[in-house]
C-alpha cells in the first residue's frame, strides 16, 4: 500500500503544480488546493501507515530515468511525513481562500506551482536515502521557498528578505555538501546504510557534526544563524508562512537527527551540550526579540526561533544523555523534541494562518493599527486564541504537553554526576522557564492588541470574517492543538516507536497509561492533560451553574471606566509598544533601544500639545557584530573577483584557453 500512497501524493502535488500553470482564476486556485490537499493527505496517510506498521520501506522506481535516486521510509521519516502532511493539508485548504486576493496582483501561477513543488520536495526530503537525493531535494525545497517568499515582490523589504534567505540558506547548503562529502567519502550516491557502517575517526566525526550543525542550524533558524527567518517568513503569503515556519524549518531538526543520531550514531557529550546551549539561547533570545515586534507575522517568526530552541533543548539533552549512557532519559529527550516539533507545526501553522486572516481582512500586519477584531472576526479570533494559548504552553493544550516533557528531561540531568551538567541544567531549565513565561507575555500582547478593545484604524474597523475555506484550514489545526494536547498517552508511545525504528538507542520499555507517568530511573513526574482538561471544563461549568442559581443575574452595559472622561477612543488604549515597555526596560542591556520623541507645541502656549511623535527601535547589535564583518569581507572579495571580469573578449578567450589546458593536464595526470 505504501508505494501507492507515495505515488498518490507525488501525483497530487504534480497535478496541483501543473494545474497552477494551466488554469487561471478560481478554477486554478481550486485545483492547486485540491492537488496540494490530496498530496498532503496521502503524505499523512503514508506517514501514519509506516509508523503504525513499523515497516521500513524502500521505494524503487526503475522506470524513472533517474540514477542515484534513492527513497526509503523508516520510522523517523514516517514521523516527519506526518508533520508535513498535517501542516500542508491545513495550509492548502486555507490557501484556496487566501490566494483569492492575489488574483490579478501577483502571479498565481508561480505561487500555486511553487507551493506544490515545495510540498513535494518536503515529502521526498524525509524519504531521501542517499546524499545526492538528500541534497538535491534540499536545494529544490530551498529554491521553491525562495520563489514563494518573493510572491509579493513589489512590497517593501520582500526582495531584501528573499536575498538574505537565499544567501544564508546557501551558506548552510555549502556546509551540508561538505558534511555529506566527508561522511560519504565522496560517493554521493552511496546509500545511508553504507554511511552508518563506515568507521570514521573521532576528528572526522566531529567535523561532520559541526558542518551538519551549521547546515541544519541555518535552516532551523538557530541563533545566531536566524537572521533570515524573521525577514523571510513574514513577507511570504500566509499559508506559505505556515508551511515555512511549521514544516520547512523542521527539516533542520530532521537533518540534525538523521545525521547525528542515525548516520553518526551519537557522539561525545559536548555535541549534545552545544545543541542544548544553542537551543537555550535561541529559545530565550527568540522570544525576547518577538516581544519587541509589532508586526504580527514577524512576531510569529521570532517565536519560530524560540520554539526551534525548545525543540533543540530536547534533542540536545537526548544526545547528551545518550553519550552518558542513560538511554531512557535520552529517549525522553528525543521524544520531547519530536513532540514539540509536531506541536509547533500545528500551533505555529495555526497562528500564521490566523495572522494571514487578519492581514486578509485588514490589509495590515502592524499591530498598532489593529484591535477590536474579536467582534468583527469572532471565529478567527477564537482560533488564534487557541493557538496563542497553545504556544504559551498553557494546559491542557499541546504546547504544554511537550514543554512539560522537555522540563522533565532537563531535570533528569540531576542523574549525571558532573559539575558542568549540574550547573548547566538548572540554567537551561531557567532559560526555558523564562522563555515560556515571556511567551505568555508576548501572546497576551499579540492577541490582546490585535483582537481586543477598539479598532485602531479604519481598516481594522471595517474588517470582516474571512471565507469558509480559510476558517476550515484554521479549525483543522485548532482540533490538532487540542487533540495532541490531551492525548500524550497515545502520542508518546508512537514517538518512541519512531525512535526505536532507528535502532540507535536501546529503547527502554516506558510504561504509558492514561496518566502519562514516565518512570525513568530516579526521576518521575506524572500528569494527565486529559483529566486536567475534563476537570477544568467541569469546574468551569459547575461554577457557571452555581453562579446562575445563587448569584444575582443582572447585567448592564455601560461605558468603559476611565475616571469619568467623556468619550473613549482607540487613542486611549494601551499600545503594543507600551505593553512591552516594562520588559524592554528590564532587558535594556540586550535591546539597547533608541528613542526619538518630538513634541509639537501650540505656538501660543506649550501647555497645549498639537502632536507627539514617538519612535523607538531596538538595536540588533549582536547580529550586526556577527554579520557586518562577514558581509564586508564578502563585498571586498567580490570587488576583487570583479577585476577578472573586465569585459574584454580577448581576456575571456585567454581564460578559456587556460582553463582547457589545465583541464587537459589534469585529465592526463589523473588517468
Amino acid at each position: 500500500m505504501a508505494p501507492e500512497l507515495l505515488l498518490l501524493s507525488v501525483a497530487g502535488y504534480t497535478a496541483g503544480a501543473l494545474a497552477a500553470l494551466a488554469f487561471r482564476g478560481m478554477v486554478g486556485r481550486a485545483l492547486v488546493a485540491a492537488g496540494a490537499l490530496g498530496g498532503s493527505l496521502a503524505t499523512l496517510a503514508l506517514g501514519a501507515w509506516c509508523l503504525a506498521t513499523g515497516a521500513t520501506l524502500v521505494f524503487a522506481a526503475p522506470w524513472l530515468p533517474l540514477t542515484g535516486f534513492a527513497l526509503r521510509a523508516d520510522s523517523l521519516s514516517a514521523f516527519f511525513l506526518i508533520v508535513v502532511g498535517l501542516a500542508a493539508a491545513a495550509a492548502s485548504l486555507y490557501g484556496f481562500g487566501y490566494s483569492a486576493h492575489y488574483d490579478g496582483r501577483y502571479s498565481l501561477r508561480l505561487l500555486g506551482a511553487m507551493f506544490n513543488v515545495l510540498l513535494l520536495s518536503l515529502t521526498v526530503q524525509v524519504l531521501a536515502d542517499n546524499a545526492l537525493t538528500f541534497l538535491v531535494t534540499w536545494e529544490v525545497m530551498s529554491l521553491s521557498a525562495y520563489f514563494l517568499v518573493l510572491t509579493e515582490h513589489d512590497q517593501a523589504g520582500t526582495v531584501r528578505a528573499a536575498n538574505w534567505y537565499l544567501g544564508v540558506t546557501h551558506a548552510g547548503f555549502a556546509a551540508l555538501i561538505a558534511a555529506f562529502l566527508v561522511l560519504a567519502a565522496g560517493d554521493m550516491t552511496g546509500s545511508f546504510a553504507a554511511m552508518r557502517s563506515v568507521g570514521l575517526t573521532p576528528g572526522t566525526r566531529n567535523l561532520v557534526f559541526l558542518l551538519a550543525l551549521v547546515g541544519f542550524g541555518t535552516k532551523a533558524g538557530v541563533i545566531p544563524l536566524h537572521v533570515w527567518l524573521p525577514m523571510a517568513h513574514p513577507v511570504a503569503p500566509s499559508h506559505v508562512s505556515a508551511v515555512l515556519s511549521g514544516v520547512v524549518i523542521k527539516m533542520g531538526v530532521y537533518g540534525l537527527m538523521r545525521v547525528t543520531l542515525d548516520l553518526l550514531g551519537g557522539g561525545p557529550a559536548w555535541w549534545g551540550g552545544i545543541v542544548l546551549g544553542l537551543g537555550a539561547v535561541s529559545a530565550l533570545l527568540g522570544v525576547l526579540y518577538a516581544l519587541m515586534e509589532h508586526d504580527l507575522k514577524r512576531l510569529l517568526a521570532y517565536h519560530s526561533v524560540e520554539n526551534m530552541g525548545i525543540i533543540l533543548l530536547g534533542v540536545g539533552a537526548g544526545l547528551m544523555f545518550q553519550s552518558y549512557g542513560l538511554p531512557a532519559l535520552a529517549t525522553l529527550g528525543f521524544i520531547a523534541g519530536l513532540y514539540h516539533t509536531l506541536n509547533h507545526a500545528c500551533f505555529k501553522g495555526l497562528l500564521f494562518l490566523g495572522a494571514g486572516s487578519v492581514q486578509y481582512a485588514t490589509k495590515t500586519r502592524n499591530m498598532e493599527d489593529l484591535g477590536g477584531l474579536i467582534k468583527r472576526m469572532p471565529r478567527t479570533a477564537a482560533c488564534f486564541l487557541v493557538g496563542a494559548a497553545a504556544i504559551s504552553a498553557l494546559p491542557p493544550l499541546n504546547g504544554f504537553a511537550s514543554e512539560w516533557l522537555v522540563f522533565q528531561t532537563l531535570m533528569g540531568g540531576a542523574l549525571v554526576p558532573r559539575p558542568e551538567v549540574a550547573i548547566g541544567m538548572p540554567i537551561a531549565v531557567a532559560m526555558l522557564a523564562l522563555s515560556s513565561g515571556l511567551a505568555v507575555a508576548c501572546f497576551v500582547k499579540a492577541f490582546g492588541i490585535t483582537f481586543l478593545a477598539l479598532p485602531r484604524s479604519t481598516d481594522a474597523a471595517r474588517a470582516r470574517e474571512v471565507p469558509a475555506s480559510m476558517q476550515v484550514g484554521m479549525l483543522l489545526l485548532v482540533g490538532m492543538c487540542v487533540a495532541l494536547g490531551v492525548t500524550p498517552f497515545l502520542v508518546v508511545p508512537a514517538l518512541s516507536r519512531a525512535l526505536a525504528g532507528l535502532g540507535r538507542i536501546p529503547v527502554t520499555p516506558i510504561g504509558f497509561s492514561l496518566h502519562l507517568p514516565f518512570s525513568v530511573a530516579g526521576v518521575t513526574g506524572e500528569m494527565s492533560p486529559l483529566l486536567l482538561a475534563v476537570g477544568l471544563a467541569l469546574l468551569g461549568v459547575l461554577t457557571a451553574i452555581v453562579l446562575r442559581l445563587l448569584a444575582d443575574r443582572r447585567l448592564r452595559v455601560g461605558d468603559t471606566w476611565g475616571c469619568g472622561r467623556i468619550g473613549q477612543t482607540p487613542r486611549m488604549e494601551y499600545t503594543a509598544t507600551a505593553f512591552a515597555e516594562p520588559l524592554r526596560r528590564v532587558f535594556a542591556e540586550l535591546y539597547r533601544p533608541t528613542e526619538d520623541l518630538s513634541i509639537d507645541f501650540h505656538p501660543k502656549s506649550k501647555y497645549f500639545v498639537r502632536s507627539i511623535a514617538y519612535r523607538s527601535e531596538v538595536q540588533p547589535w549582536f547580529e550586526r557584530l556577527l554579520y557586518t564583518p562577514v558581509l564586508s569581507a564578502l563585498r571586498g572579495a567580490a570587488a576583487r573577483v570583479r577585476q577578472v571580469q573586465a569585459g574584454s573578449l580577448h581576456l575571456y578567450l585567454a581564460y578559456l584557453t587556460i582553463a582547457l589546458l589545465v583541464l587537459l593536464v589534469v585529465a592526463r595526470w589523473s588517468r
Partner: protein
Amino acid sequence: MLLFLKILKAGIVTEPLAPGEPDVIEVAREVETKARRLLGRAVAIREVDAGSCNGCEIEITGLTGPVYDSERFGIHFVASPRHADLLLVTGPVTRNMEIPLLKTYEATPDPKIVVAVGDCARTCGVFRGSYAVVGSVDAVIPVDVFVSGCPPEPTDILRGILTALDRLPKRKRRRDGT
C-alpha cells in the same frame, strides 16, 4: 525591630466600642447592625471629589486612620466605581466634574447609594454663583443623604453613611431584578 517595639508600645489606638464618647460609639454600633443587615456588612466606597476645597477629603481620610478605623465596620475605599456600593461625593459640582460625576454614577453597579459630604455639596457654599460651578450634587445625580458641616467630622460622615444604608431597597426585591 524598633518598629515592632513601637507598635507593641502604642497598642490599639482605635476608639473602643465600649464606654467612651457616646456619639461615636452609638453611630458605630448602628452602622454595624445596619450595614450587616443591608450590605452583608461590607460597604465599598468610591470617593468623588466634584470640586471641593479638599477640607472634606481630609476628614474622610480620617475615617480610614487608626482612630476612627472604618475598616472595622467593613467599610473600605475602593479604586473603581465598578467595585463600589456607595459614592461619597464632596464639593460643589464644577463644570469640569459634571460629566465625570455622572459617569461615575453610571459606572457603579446597583444597588448603590450616594452620600454628599459637606455644605458645598448641598448648597455650593461660598462657591455659589461661580461661573465654574454647575450646582449642588443633587443637581447632577440623585443623592440619598447629605452630610452637613464645613467640613463635617468623621463621625458625621459615618452617621451619613449609616442613614444612607437605611435607604437601600430590601434585598429580596433586588433579587428579582429591575
